């Protein structure tokens, strides 16, 4: 190791790109930096990131940004105002509520659905997949059969039937979407686990006396996370579309919650004359799910250059 390597200024470009990291921290930051550089080269991916950061910002500050109340409208003076009316940039709906304010508040519901589904579905998939891949044998066979059964089900229809049984509402919609979205994650985690279950570092940990539980939790799962994150990000768009679809059918968030899918449904009645009532929430859904798709594509290309451009 040369002196020049160790005396690099921490967090400088050279320090990050050094191929002889002197500490674990440097190696970790260095890897992250390389991934980030690859990601940042992709302009569309950056755009996706900006959209998602924007969504988080809007959701956090909806209370400050929204010019009007999202639930109570001015029924007397402001029913179905067109786009660009003074004070109502995106017009108002049939109850005199400002569409822009409702969209801003609705971003919270969208974020809630996406985050909760990810928090519920990803760990289930991760546990089922890693256990199945590491254990092998009949455990693998049983778990994969169950996964296949859920994969065989059409997602939207299963979610519909579940919500119909549990009763409409945003919590049940989230639950139904989560139940239908974990199988692909289990498949991915299993495939990843299979590739390194016989590798030497696992054998080494095993020799050191680690229990299977510890191996799966501390050594197998962390290695599956990056491919799982990519897949979850790519799925977010689909989750948003399913949630909006459920909302549109009246099975998701209930009025007066400003859920975007439900807003499209309520605007449907005036679609011929006041098209903006239904059109605006759709644009919001389109932009956000486009953001997640772009971000997911970019992440995949950055984390897994093998598949880039395919």
């Amino acid at each position, binding site marked *: 190791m040369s002196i020049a390597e160790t005396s690099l200024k921490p967090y400088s470009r050279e320090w990050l790109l050094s191929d002889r990291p002197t500490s674990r921290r440097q190696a970790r930051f260095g890897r992250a930096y390389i991934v980030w550089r690859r990601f940042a080269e992709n302009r569309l991916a950056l755009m996706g990131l900006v959209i998602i950061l924007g969504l988080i910002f809007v959701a956090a500050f909806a209370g400050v940004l929204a010019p009007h109340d999202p639930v109570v409208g001015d029924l007397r003076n402001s029913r179905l105002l067109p786009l660009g009316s003074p004070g109502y940039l995106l017009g108002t709906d049939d109850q005199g509520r400002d569409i822009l304010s409702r969209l801003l508040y609705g971003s919270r519901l969208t974020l809630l659905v996406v985050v909760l589904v990810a928090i519920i579905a990803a760990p289930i998939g991760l546990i089922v997949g890693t256990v199945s891949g590491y254990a092998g044998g009949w455990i693998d066979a049983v778990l994969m059969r169950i996964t296949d059964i859920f994969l065989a089900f*059409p*997602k939207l229809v299963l979610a*519909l039937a579940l919500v*119909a049984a549990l009763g409409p509402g945003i919590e049940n919609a989230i639950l139904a979407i989560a139940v239908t979205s974990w199988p692909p994650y289990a498949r991915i985690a299993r495939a990843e686990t299979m590739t390194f279950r016989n590798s030497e570092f696992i054998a080494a940990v095993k020799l050191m006396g680690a229990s299977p539980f510890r191996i799966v939790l501390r050594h197998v799962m962390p290695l599956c996370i990056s491919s799982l994150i990519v897949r979850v990000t790519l799925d977010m768009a689909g989750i948003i579309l399913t949630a909006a679809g459920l909302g549109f059918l009246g099975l998701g968030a209930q009025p007066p919650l400003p859920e975007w899918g439900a807003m499209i449904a309520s605007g449907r009645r005036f679609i011929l004359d006041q098209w903006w009532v239904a059109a605006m929430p759709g644009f919001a859904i389109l932009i956000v799910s486009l953001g997640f798709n772009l971000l997911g594509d970019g992440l995949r290309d950055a984390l897994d250059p093998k598949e880039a451009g395919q």
Partner: protein
Amino acid sequence: MTLPETSVATRRNRRRASSFATSVLRFAVTVVTTIFGLLVVTFFIGRVIPIDPVLAIVGDRAPAHLYERTRIELGLNLPIYQQFFIYAKQALSGHFGTSVLTSNPVLEDIRRVFPATMELATIGTLIGSIVGVPLGVLAAVRRGSIADQIVRVIGLIGYSVPIFWLGLLSLVLFYAQLRWVAFPGRVDIVYEYSFTPQTGFYLLDAAMQGQWEVMWDLFRHIALPGGLLGYFSLAYISRMTRSFMLNELSQEYVVAARAKGLSETRIIWFHALRNAAVPLVTVIALSYANLLEGSVLTETIFSWPGLGLYITNSLQNADMNAVLGGTLVIGAVFVGINIFSDLLYRTLDPRTRSR
């Protein structure tokens, strides 16, 4: 030690036969467990409804003995596994119960509405394949060009747009503003009595009966929902085609074909696409299955009297028999399409056979 020729051949044949038997067996196990799983899931969905099915029938003022009798009649006093066996037996023989909404047996309803959904999904898949495959090939051949970017954006929007919203907006534009297409529905009310469909696939029926005026009307009805589903299928198919073609074009046989002096057109359309076609078949089959599902929202927008509209209508009326029956049928069709595409893949790709 050298074995006689014949012995080697019989051995190989025997091995082949046994591997064939194993794969058939594995196949059968997959199908049976998946169908079993479908039944378990729909059974439990039917059990978690917060509505008491007995109260729904007798009303909440019924005396205790009547309540108890109905409970026994419905088999709800039995242990849960016995209830499941009864449910499975009935479902497998096609008894999904009676629809509360239409008061017909659910299976009869589904049989009536399913051709409409199939017709829609078929048109969608046709559009998706006929347009999507060439677009994907173009994007792969001109990788990185403007054409590639455009195909990518078309695909990305297809993946990101809510189908019901696009449906509503296209109705405003093409029906209300431009008057290019007909009012939502499947056929104009004028023809409802003069046109008697036989197979349930109206386009086919009209063509066979030579009713060209009806045909034109049917076309004006299916254009928008079919086109929309076609767009979604196109987004998926073109993306996959591009990826398969990129893979094929980087293979050595393409270099060899170029060295031999074959024209680029021939290499792309006859050699590379032919090899890419094998995985593409699977993709197209999957996209067909996806459209069957995607039809749920599309049919609601366009009042298309298919399975999707049937399920959503039943949902609004808490008609669980119909919802679960519809779910089961779509699930079974899904499984069927998966098996079909798997078999087709095996037939088309000789490499999967010898292994």
